[in-house]
């Protein structure tokens, strides 16, 4: 609970009137939203609408000009860099370009956080295999990032992000530039993470299709695959949408609401 009684401990991520500009350009304009624990919020918008910036702000990699940001009850916008390292260990992020350490093997990349925490070697090995099995890349253990395809790199980045069982996951366009088959594989992993581990997540994307797949599919552990939610099921996907345009929030709501929205920008966005 923050000083003014804001009930931010209940939420995974809270943005309160956040503004940010780079030089003369407004990146975020008075943005406020909340991410409930265990749910996923899909951030949609055209390129340059400030989506990636939101993830960097949530991690404290960037600072807002004004407004407050809470993550897991901590006011990120008021913390010092040295204090942030502790909090960041509870958050996982998948960067758009994967940002794997290119001079380290896949194994060391995935194990990075555990090595930092001085986890015993046997446990590291077990958890690395487990994380790589989750993304179905167990055979790449000894390879280097440069030897992997774009989609595989993205999946290794997911494995690296989830290995320490983070409470919040931030995905930055995990399907950008990938073929439809690989994209679906990655979205399936995201759905699996959401439904099996109940991790809170912010998903940045400009692919509307991914967002709808997230909202209309569930993960079936018996069949080990993602399936569409059958009609008549009373099932909450816990997935909401937030649409940004030029740093402003133009829409926030669930899949049905966005499909029926009469906002002109949304209409245009949906029909693109």
């Amino acid at each position: 609970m923050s000083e003014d009684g804001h009930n931010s401990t209940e939420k995974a991520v809270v943005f309160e009137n956040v503004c940010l500009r780079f030089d003369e350009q407004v990146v975020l304009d008075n943005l406020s939203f909340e991410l409930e624990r265990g749910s996923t919020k899909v951030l949609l918008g055209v390129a340059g609408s400030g989506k990636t910036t939101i993830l960097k702000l949530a991690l404290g990699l960037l600072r807002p000009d004004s407004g407050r940001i809470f993550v897991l009850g901590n006011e990120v916008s008021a913390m010092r860099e040295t204090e942030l390292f502790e909090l960041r260990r509870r958050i996982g992020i998948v960067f758009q370009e994967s940002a794997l350490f290119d001079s380290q093997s896949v194994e060391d990349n995935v194990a990075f956080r555990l090595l930092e925490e001085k986890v015993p070697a046997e446990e590291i090995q077990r958890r690395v295999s487990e994380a790589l099995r989750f993304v179905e890349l167990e055979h790449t253990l000894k390879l280097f990032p440069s030897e992997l395809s774009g989609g595989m790199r993205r999946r290794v980045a997911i494995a690296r992000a989830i290995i320490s069982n983070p409470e919040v996951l931030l995905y930055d366009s995990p399907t950008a530039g990938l073929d439809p088959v690989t994209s679906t594989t990655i979205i399936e992993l995201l759905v699996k993470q959401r439904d099996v581990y109940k991790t809170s997540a912010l998903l940045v994307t400009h692919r509307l299709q991914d967002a709808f797949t997230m909202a209309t599919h569930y993960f079936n552990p018996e069949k080990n695959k993602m399936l569409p939610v059958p009609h008549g099921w009373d099932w909450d996907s816990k997935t909401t949408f937030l649409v940004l345009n030029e740093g402003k929030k133009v829409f926030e709501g669930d899949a049905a609401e966005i499909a029926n929205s009469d906002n002109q920008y949304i209409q245009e966005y949906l029909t693109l």
Partner: protein
Amino acid sequence: MAFSLTEYAKGNVLAVQEYSILSWRGLANLFSQPRYFGDIVQQMDTIGVGSLPIVVLTGFFTGAVLALQSANSLARFGELSLTGQLVSMSMVRELGPVLTGLMVAGRNASGMASELGSMKVTEQIDAMRALGTDPTRKLVTPRLTATMFMLFFLTILSDLLGLTGGSVIATLLLRLDLNQYWTSAWQTLRYADVFMGLLKPVLFGYIIATIGCYYGLSAKGGTQGVGRATTQAVVASSVLILAVDLFVTRLLMVFMGPL
């Protein structure tokens, strides 16, 4: 956008501030957990062992040419026997530290700037921060410690090789007595000379590593930015080494008496 003198000045002041913070934190990190001894050893290998060939060659040839040149001048005064002293004083006080510093700057400041610069432009530095690891601890401090430590020993080696180079010229070309050369070279050195000669590499090591890391970590604009950072790191560290050398020499002369 029009050129603004205020913006330009602000940019420079900001750069100095960021450099100062980075170089302070690079050292201060040594005094708190976590420390990365594995990375320090790895950097020592890259910087120290990796620089051995160039340091050995530079030291040897510098000493040799120094003997040749000084003998030429000394012969005019009929003091050829002082060659050992001159080579020894010049190598230990000045040329050993400065040339080793410049060589290592050329090799390692550029290496650090390009390595960290590539990591910066491919978001690997951000990824490291996002994974809860402080890049100044994991990347800067090991490089800083390793460079300061290894440059100290590389300089000693360079001094020794310089004297050896001088002795080869002295005996083979100048027909001086080998024993006399080494005795005069050894005896002329005083505590203050050695102190000066060994303090400098520690300072130069600090300059090389902090400048290399600073330019690397502030690289932006893709591969071109990395290239620019690399060049700037070598230029800045070389110039700074020479400038600091002048001031340190003068300062030590004031404190330890003219030598």
